[in-house]
């Protein structure tokens, strides 16, 4: 019998939702029928989601990808000799040489899609564990200095410098400190946290261990949304693996599952939820860094923020800081979503323009119709028309145009979109998800829906538009958190950039 062939089939949710499990079974069956010895390795996704399931085979000249592989393709792939990397209509060559990959600069997603996420050997062979070792060698102070030098800002949306937050927690007097990972990823158009947790969960765990070491925390929590069943399963196993391999020796981590509340992604609502309460936003001060979980100093960081720390320590803070644009340093895992031809995950230095991302990298719409609008930064992000596609991905540049980078999700809409409906949805979403603490958010959003409904019906459009502006003004000023405070972004950007959609016949 000849050598054992290694075949990589993603088990990322996007691949699974496109039939990857059945494809893996079909490959194993066909190999058995041909009396070939194969080992099927389940990986995360490379991020080229339009090619999923993207199956890779290990050949003498490296890994060769084939995708999207359907059940009906399996026999022909074997016939063509794919195990030797042979030509086939679905062959994309070496995945890392594919233009979508070759244009990226991966720090956070270095291992994702390459390794078996639950193999300690793979993790170590690809540099896993070196970040924590480096932190221990440097000591807490020098590690903190490196993190600050890297310029890494929180990837959950607000963009607060990670190193400053860690330093605050480290310097706050307390007997107990906590590390909390925000894995609530509620924004539509975002899935980078999910991909990382499914494809390289040990990177996140290592990042949390480093955080625990630096700030002096002995306990961590990952708060993950219930809508991510696959990520939950992978994380449970990864935590077990990390525990047996000593990665959690100094700071154990517990996985907690949310219960379908968007506002629980807001850090103080998340802490309330972790404490077993309703997810209501807390007034600040105190900052969680001073008095967070159970009143103790707490680092709350997004999945990507934490998972990027090990590679910054291994590859060098200066190298990370050298990338980027303005005050947005390093790379951003950008998520291309909605009506887009080449959807998926694209990690690149800040500064890349919307036009490049949507037209060149994303290939325009999936429907083939013209792109009309993009929403960047989740349900509280602004809708941008083509005229703003020269905006570089940069926190400050987006803010200057009344927009948000947020968690880096870009949702593309074609010319069939009705922007007044999108404005209505923003208000509806705010009403559904409001934690109820502030009257403008709780009541104003319902009122906003009613006003937009009148506009849709063509009733007193001019005065209702004025009323809508007023409401947005009240929401912006009278809200405790960004749910009520930012919902004016999608609503008013729709009015401003697409006024014709608000003039009903």
């Amino acid at each position, binding site marked *: 019998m000849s050598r054992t062939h290694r075949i990589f089939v993603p088990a990322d*949710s*996007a691949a*699974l*939702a*496109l039939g990857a499990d059945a494809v893996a079974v079909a490959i194993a069956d066909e190999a058995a029928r041909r009396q070939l010895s194969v080992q099927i390795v389940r990986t995360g996704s490379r991020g080229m*989601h*339009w090619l999923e399931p993207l199956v890779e085979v290990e050949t003498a000249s490296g890994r060769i990808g084939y995708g999207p592989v359907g059940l009906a393709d399996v026999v022909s792939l074997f016939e063509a000799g794919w195990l030797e990397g042979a030509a086939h209509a679905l062959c994309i060559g070496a995945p890392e040489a594919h233009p979508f990959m070759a244009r990226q600069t991966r720090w956070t997603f270095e291992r994702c899609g390459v390794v078996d996420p639950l193999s300690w050997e793979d993790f170590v062979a690809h540099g896993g564990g070196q970040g924590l070792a480096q932190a221990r060698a440097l000591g807490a102070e020098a590690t903190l200095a490196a993190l600050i030098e890297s310029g890494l800002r929180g990837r959950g949306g607000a963009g607060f410098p990670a190193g400053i937050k860690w330093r605050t927690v480290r310097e706050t007097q307390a007997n107990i400190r906590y590390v909390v990972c925000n894995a609530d*990823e*509620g*924004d*539509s*158009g*975002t*899935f980078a*946290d*999910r*991909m990382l947790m499914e494809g390289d969960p040990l990177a996140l765990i290592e990042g949390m261990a480093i955080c625990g070491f630096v700030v002096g925390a002995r306990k961590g929590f990952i708060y993950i949304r*219930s*809508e*991510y*069943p*696959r*990520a939950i399963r992978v994380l449970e196993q990864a935590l077990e693996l990390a525990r047996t391999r000593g990665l959690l020796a100094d700071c154990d981590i517990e996985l*907690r*599952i*949310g*219960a*379908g*509340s*968007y506002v629980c992604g807001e850090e103080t609502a998340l802490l309330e*939820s*972790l*404490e*077993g*309460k*309703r*997810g*209501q936003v807390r007034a600040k001060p105190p900052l969680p860094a001073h008095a967070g979980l*159970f009143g103790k100093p707490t680092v709350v960081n997004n999945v990507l923020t934490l998972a990027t720390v090990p590679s910054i320590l291994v590859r060098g803070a200066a190298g990370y800081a050298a990338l980027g644009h303005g005050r947005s340093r390093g790379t951003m895992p950008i*998520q*291309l*979503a*909605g*009506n*887009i031809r080449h*959807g*998926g*995950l694209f990690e690149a230095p800040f500064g890349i323009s919307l036009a490049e991302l949507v037209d060149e990298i994303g290939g325009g719409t*999936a429907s083939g119709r013209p792109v009309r609008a993009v*929403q960047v930064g989740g*349900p509280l992000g602004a809708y941008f028309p083509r005229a703003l596609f020269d905006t570089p991905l940069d926190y400050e540049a987006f803010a200057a145009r009344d927009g948000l980078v947020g968690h880096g*999700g870009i*949702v593309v*809409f*074609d010319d069939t*979109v009705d922007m007044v409906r*999108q404005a209505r*949805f923003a208000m509806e*979403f705010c009403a559904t*998800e409001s934690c109820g603490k502030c009257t403008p958010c709780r009541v104003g959003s319902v009122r906003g829906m009613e006003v937009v409904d009148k506009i849709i019906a063509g009733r007193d459009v001019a005065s209702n538009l004025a009323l809508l502006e007023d409401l947005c003004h009240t929401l912006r000023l009278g809200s405790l958190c960004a749910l009520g405070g930012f919902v004016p972004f999608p609503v008013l950007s729709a009015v401003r950039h697409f006024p014709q959609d608000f003039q009903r016949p």
Partner: protein
Amino acid sequence: MAWDVLKAAEIIDAHRHLDGATLPVLRALQEAFGYLPEEATAQVADALNLSRAEVHGVISFYHDFRRAPIGRTSLKLCRAEACQAMGADALASEAAAKLGTTWHGTTTDGRVTLEPVFCLGLCSVAPAALVGDELVARADWPRLAAALDKCGR
């Protein structure tokens, strides 16, 4: 499953040692019984030393917690923006018509409950759905129907 005080006590005991145990306890109870009946409020409150009002407040805050049983299979359709951009609204209308029910409603044969969800993290392969335990990308009615059939619709 009908409420069972002893079984519930066992589940509560398995989670009560956790810091901030309320959510994990409620989650585990709902997983076992399918929903959280009135009795759950009182029993959890007593066991965790909370008032009934507090437990009720928690249950009513979170969209995941249900006060009544649902159909055998839950069909969750994503209603969020990336899926809207790929026709999620039309798909939802079609599914509702085909099933003869509305959001949060259950088919007359008690087999399928139609539930909204706001993002499944499949925004690059939209529209997305979760049929029982199966994720479905680029969903259309035939694919949803096939997934429902697998759940023994």
